[in-house]
């Protein structure tokens, strides 16, 4: 435990002193503030002279405005924070030959990897909480609405999901820093995975759906069964990407009006009917229940990723050369 704490403190100091961390967190805060001001002013405009509806506060995070919403931004850009914090954590020590020195101190070898992962997670948590608080403060000023208890809870859950999601990317980049000897290689490999999941999985999903269940225009219109199959395959395939998992989970948590993660085509007639009949927002617990599979999947991939990382690191030969 003592070893973990010492390494953790040093790593945390290193992160906060690094230019890399400064740049990326400044970028996240800056974009967050810009998005919020734009969205906030739009909401202000809309609300003029109207009674303030409930749950409007969360719109600050989910409303897309002219560009994209804050939630979308973190979903897309958050992984970079994780990658930047982790891609050189082990191989930098290997290159500078401090790793062999570190493991010859009276600490358990897993303290090194645990402390590095934990310090990264801590930094991510600090950035997320700070950004969300900043946006909330700005939002309160702009739209003049104070968040209620339920909104605060939803934001807390949002932060926890985001933390897990970005930690998954931290895990990926630490894994690459264990596997690859060169820091450039591990950075590029992490970025390649990031690009793959953010662009190509959704593209691949539609290609795959077209190939497995082609929807053809016939004289009698579109074959409904085929269309459903097509839709279902595309959805399942796109859920391979942690980004899809994350955006489904967070938009449902932050938007109480969203009652399902499925598209309209996949709903039965009764479901569609009840959606149009009951317009009131979902209670928090119901929102959580909808995305519980997503949450469990995010937790699972994050743990799995760290587990592999831990296993590979513990099995590696520590040679100086």
């Amino acid at each position, binding site marked *: 435990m003592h070893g973990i704490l*010492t390494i953790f403190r040093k790593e945390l100091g290193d992160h906060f002193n690094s230019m890399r961390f400064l740049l990326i967190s400044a970028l996240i805060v800056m974009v967050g503030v810009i998005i919020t001001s734009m969205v906030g002013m739009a909401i202000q405009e809309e609300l003029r002279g109207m009674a303030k509806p409930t749950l409007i506060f969360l719109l600050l995070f989910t409303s897309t405005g002219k560009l994209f919403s804050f939630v979308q931004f973190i979903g897309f850009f958050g992984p970079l924070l994780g990658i930047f914090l982790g891609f050189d954590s082990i191989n930098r020590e290997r290159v500078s030959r*401090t790793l*062999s020195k570190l493991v010859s101190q009276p600490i358990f070898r897993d303290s090194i990897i645990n402390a590095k992962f934990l310090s990264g997670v801590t930094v991510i948590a600090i950035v997320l909480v700070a950004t969300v608080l900043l946006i909330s403060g700005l939002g309160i000023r702009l739209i003049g609405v104070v968040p209620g208890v339920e909104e605060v809870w939803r934001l807390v859950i949002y932060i926890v999901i985001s933390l897990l999601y970005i930690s998954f990317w931290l895990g990926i980049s630490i894994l690459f820093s264990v596997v690859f000897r060169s820091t450039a290689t591990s950075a590029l490999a992490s970025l390649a995975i990031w690009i793959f999941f953010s662009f190509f999985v959704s593209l691949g999903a539609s290609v795959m759906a077209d190939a497995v269940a082609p929807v053809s225009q016939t004289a009698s219109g579109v074959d409904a069964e085929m269309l459903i199959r097509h839709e279902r395959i595309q959805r399942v395939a796109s859920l391979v990407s942690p980004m899809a998992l994350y955006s489904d989970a967070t938009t449902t948590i932050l938007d109480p009006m969203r009652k399902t993660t499925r598209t309209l085509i996949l709903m039965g007639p009764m479901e569609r009917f009840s959606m149009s009949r009951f317009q009131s927002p979902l209670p928090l617990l119901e929102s959580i229940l909808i995305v519980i599979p997503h949450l469990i999947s995010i937790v699972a991939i994050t743990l799995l990723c760290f587990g592999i990382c831990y296993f590979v690191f513990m099995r590696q030969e*520590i040679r*100086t050369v």
Partner: protein
Amino acid sequence: MTGQNIVETEELTKKYGAQTAVNRLTLQIEEGEIFGFLGPNGAGKTTTILMLLGLTEPTSGKAAVIGFDPTREPFKVKEKVGYLPENVGFYDDMDARQNLRYIARLNRIPGEVTEKRIDYWLEMVGLSEEGSKKVGTYSKGMRQRLGIAEVLIKEPKLIFLDEPTIGLDPDGTNRMLDLIHSLSREKKMTLFLSSHLLDQVQRICDRVGIMINGKLVAMGPIEELAKKKLGLDQEDYTLEEIYMKYFKEA
């Protein structure tokens, strides 16, 4: 295990795949001596050190370092044993004191003791002037001296030095050898020195072991090996002659 021997190995073997890096090594090192571990590059010297520190698991055989099995209780061994790797690395963006403090913390040395020891050992290795400079600006010789200070900060009973004088200028080499000698004589530490610079080993080591291709081919005080290999009549021997004889036979 007798109380006298601080390191004992029995048939210690390490294989990497089909290649045998260390082949049935049996050696004893007495407390307080300077032991020179000789051999050409790739003879298995570093692998032996890593096994004795518990950083690498032996394929077979037994080892005891200060009474503990390094594979089973690496923690106990690392508390009492210092290791200076070949080409030691530092956190270049921290200064010498910060580097030393970090290592001291990992060794659970209390804060006040740490500061005293840092001052003392920086003085001993002649770096007290440069203690607050970033290690990235250090020369090779300074880095090597800082490495020694870092090993000594936990005041170990046994120190493994892997090629401690490689890359040092003649003056730096001399000072390093003097320091190593005084550690053994004044501080009663045991030093395990791996090197292939024979004249230096001859100057300071009490006993040597010669390792070639993973096998320990000779072990004992230098005079004894000289008698055995070069004949009694010769007085004016060098370690190099002895070594080359063993090397040709192997």
